[in-house]
């Protein structure tokens, strides 16, 4: 870990570190004070502006935004995972005629901005916003899930597949019964970390006018008056970040808990040199 970079600090180093900590804290407090002062000058801290959070309808609109965000993310995740498994199986097929076209499709899907896919589906197929957002998220994340699971299969000890083939399983059976279950368990932290990316990407729905949390903020600010933009924005951003932090923690928890059922243990949730969790 990071502590290898320096020795256990002696009295002098501890003093320097203490002074550094005090200076750092003062600087950060100063920055916070400046922000609060600016807010106060703009009148953002007036109680009147925050009083809207005592109103039930404001919370109901925020709740609707959160509901729209979470439902798009949940539907997309539920569809994207099996699709990712399927794409992964096609991508590692023994037949070049299946493997190569799948690879091209995956490269295409992973190389495009998600918001462009959403707009494409919205305009070309004339769907409603919900379907466009979900489909954009599904296409992109299925491709990423496929790559994560493929990395998992490749990281399994070679003997796993050899043993399966030796006892007479077909190539497909070995993939389904022996390799995939272990690969999914092994990559679980990365898969959950990718869920955070998916959840964050629902906010792109804002751009195609899907009524998610950020759009709810905009609508409320337009409706109630722009002086309420800041309070509503800060509350909404805090909710979003809190939800994402919770999901991130779950990924770290799974990583810590590990798994003895996957050969080679469980991969790390942090972006390792493999494809995991692309922002």
């Amino acid at each position, binding site marked *: 870990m990071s502590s290898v970079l320096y020795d256990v600090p002696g009295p002098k180093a501890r003093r320097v570190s203490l002074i550094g900590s005090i200076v750092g804290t003062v600087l950060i407090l100063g920055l916070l004070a400046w922000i609060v002062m600016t807010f106060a000058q703009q009148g953002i801290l007036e109680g009147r502006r925050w009083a809207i959070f005592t109103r039930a309808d404001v919370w109901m609109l925020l709740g609707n935004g959160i509901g729209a965000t979470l439902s798009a993310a949940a539907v997309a995740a539920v569809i994207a995972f099996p699709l990712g498994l399927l794409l992964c199986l096609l991508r590692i097929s023994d037949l070049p005629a299946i493997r190569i076209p799948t690879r091209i499709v995956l490269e295409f899907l992973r190389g495009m901005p998600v918001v462009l896919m959403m*707009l494409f589906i919205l305009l070309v197929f004339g769907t409603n916003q919900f379907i466009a957002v979900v489909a954009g998220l599904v296409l992109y994340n299925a491709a990423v899930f496929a790559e994560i699971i493929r990395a998992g299969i490749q990281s399994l000890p070679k003997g796993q597949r050899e043993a399966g083939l030796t006892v007479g399983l077909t190539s497909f059976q070995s993939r389904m019964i022996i390799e995939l279950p272990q690969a999914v368990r092994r990559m679980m932290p990365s898969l959950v970390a990718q869920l955070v990316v998916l959840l964050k990407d629902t*906010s792109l729905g*804002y751009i195609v006018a899907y009524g998610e949390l950020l759009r709810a903020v905009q609508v409320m600010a337009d409706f109630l008056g722009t002086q309420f*933009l*800041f309070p509503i924005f800060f509350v909404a951003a805090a909710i979003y970040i809190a939800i994402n932090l919770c999901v991130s923690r779950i990924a770290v928890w799974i990583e810590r808990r590990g798994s003895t059922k996957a050969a080679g243990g469980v991969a790390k949730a942090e*972006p390792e040199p493999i494809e995991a969790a692309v922002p």
Partner: protein
Amino acid sequence: MDAVIESLPLYWNGFLRTLFLSVTSGVIALVLGTLLAAARVSPVAALRGFSMTYVEVLRNTPLTIAFFFAAIVLPRLGVKFEQFEVAAIIALSAYTAAFIAEAVRSGVNSVPVGQAEAARSIGMKFGQVLSLIILPQALRTVIPPLINILIALVKNSSVAGAFFVLELFGYGRQLANANGDQVMAVLLGVAFFYLLITIPLGILASTVERKVAIAR
């Protein structure tokens, strides 16, 4: 197809704007991210705490919210921008720096303990250990993940199109609205220009991963 061919100059403009946004924010994010990673492993507790908070919060913030903050909230706080590009670059580089900091930190952790111990035993100080011994090795290991983050940055720059910056996505949206009958061709044209940046970068990442990676 007509709309695509007629608007090639627009596409080209958007392409250059996307490149400009990506390169500028990429450079700023690389510098900021490396500084954050250095702060994260430093002996000063306040710096570690600041860097950790920054990385955790920004990594869990949707990019759209970062853009909303930079383009709509900041100007009302008295931070005025002459051009929206500046807001876009601030949002993109602040967001990307958090991911770069994480990647560089995992690279630092991948350098064997003995390297730092050897450096310390010949009397190097923390700054020397980090800048002469650890970071050069760490950066080499993290080049492939860094390229992946930069690919994500190029794709993320499309969000700027929704916040008044006319880059590839922004022009694409305009053209799609103006040519209702050729939406598919127009948007596939936009996709082509994005792939023109992202796919070569992806190939570069996997080549580097194979060739430059240090065998440990």
